[in-house]
């Protein structure tokens, strides 16, 4: 028994999902489906690609064309799918480790090409699937099983990295701010080019336990209380910025899209001698 949204877009036979109690993966996945529903996309064209990770298990639950690839490579597979058939509406679901550790290169190149793929990053600041190792977004000093003495790495800002690499739409919000998340995902899908939407997420099981962040509810409260719109943030005095994270739309521009340019190339050569 489930809502019409769920029964319309999920493979109910595969539910309930395997995610832990309080894990925000379900929230973000539902937000994606809600965005797709509101946009009225053709289910047969929607293609959801993921890598490996807890978050990357999402496609298995979704009633679209779904592809669960190798760790970090979702965007490379997705690039092939999209270029081979530009009619597909390609959406990539990925984790912070998947997209910014092993998959960092594919992220910046997909962004650079401005290929029309919408990437949703489930950023829980940890490798959930393998049990709590620090990821490239784990905050400095936080704990992970491979950072038992405190993380000395500096975290990526994935949204800004994607923007710098060439994404034409880049936005971040949290799994608490779900309506905003749905809105951003819709805008990302509508953007004709590479879009990245980062959803700050929670992993109560590993990140939470290791860092004594409290229950899933506490972690959601943290998201609610500490993420501030970038415009508001910029106006804060420096001492008020400490400990705060930014959200909002970081980039929104228009540039030629990769598969469009390729089709134009084909068009231009028509009739020419081979």
């Amino acid at each position: 028994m489930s809502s019409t949204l769920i029964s319309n877009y999920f493979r109910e036979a595969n539910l309930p999902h395997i995610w832990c109690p309080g894990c925000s993966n379900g929230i973000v996945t539902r937000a994606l489906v809600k965005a797709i529903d509101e946009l009225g996309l053709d289910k047969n064209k929607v293609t959801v690609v993921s890598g490996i990770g807890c978050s990357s298990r999402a496609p298995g639950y979704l009633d679209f064309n779904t592809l669960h690839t190798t760790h970090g490579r979702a965007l490379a597979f997705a690039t092939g799918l999209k270029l081979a058939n530009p009619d597909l509406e390609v959406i990539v679901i990925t984790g912070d480790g998947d997209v910014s550790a092993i998959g960092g290169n594919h992220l910046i190149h997909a962004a650079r090409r401005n290929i029309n793929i919408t990437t949703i990053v489930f950023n829980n600041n940890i490798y959930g699937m393998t049990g709590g190792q620090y990821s490239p977004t784990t905050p400095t000093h936080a704990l992970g099983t491979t950072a038992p003495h405190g993380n000395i790495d500096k975290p990526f800002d994935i949204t800004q990295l994607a923007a710098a690499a060439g994404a034409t739409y880049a936005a971040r919000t949290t799994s608490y701010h779900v309506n905003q998340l749905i809105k951003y995902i819709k805008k990302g899908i509508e953007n004709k080019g590479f879009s990245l939407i980062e959803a700050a997420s929670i992993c109560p099981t590993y990140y939470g336990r290791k860092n004594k962040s409290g229950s899933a509810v506490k972690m959601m409260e943290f998201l609610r209380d500490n993420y501030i719109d970038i415009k508001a943030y910029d106006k804060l005095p420096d001492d008020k910025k400490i400990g705060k994270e930014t959200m909002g739309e970081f980039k929104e521009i228009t540039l030629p899209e990769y598969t469009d340019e390729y089709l134009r190339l084909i068009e231009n050569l028509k009739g020419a001698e081979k």
Partner: protein
Amino acid sequence: MTAKDRKVIINKDWCKGCGICVAFCPKNVLALDHHDKIEVANRDACILCGQCELRCPDFAIWLGGEADE
């Protein structure tokens, strides 16, 4: 289905008892039972805002029609 017919529906089988919907319901409509499963404790207070549905990680609560509790 008219808006009037909508109400909070739950699927206990899918609920994992995280308490998120309980915590963020603006009207304290929801609670966890002693098996740590969701229940509608105070239906009358519900304003059908849909916050619970938005944030339930397990698709175990939503606004809809028909289903009896």
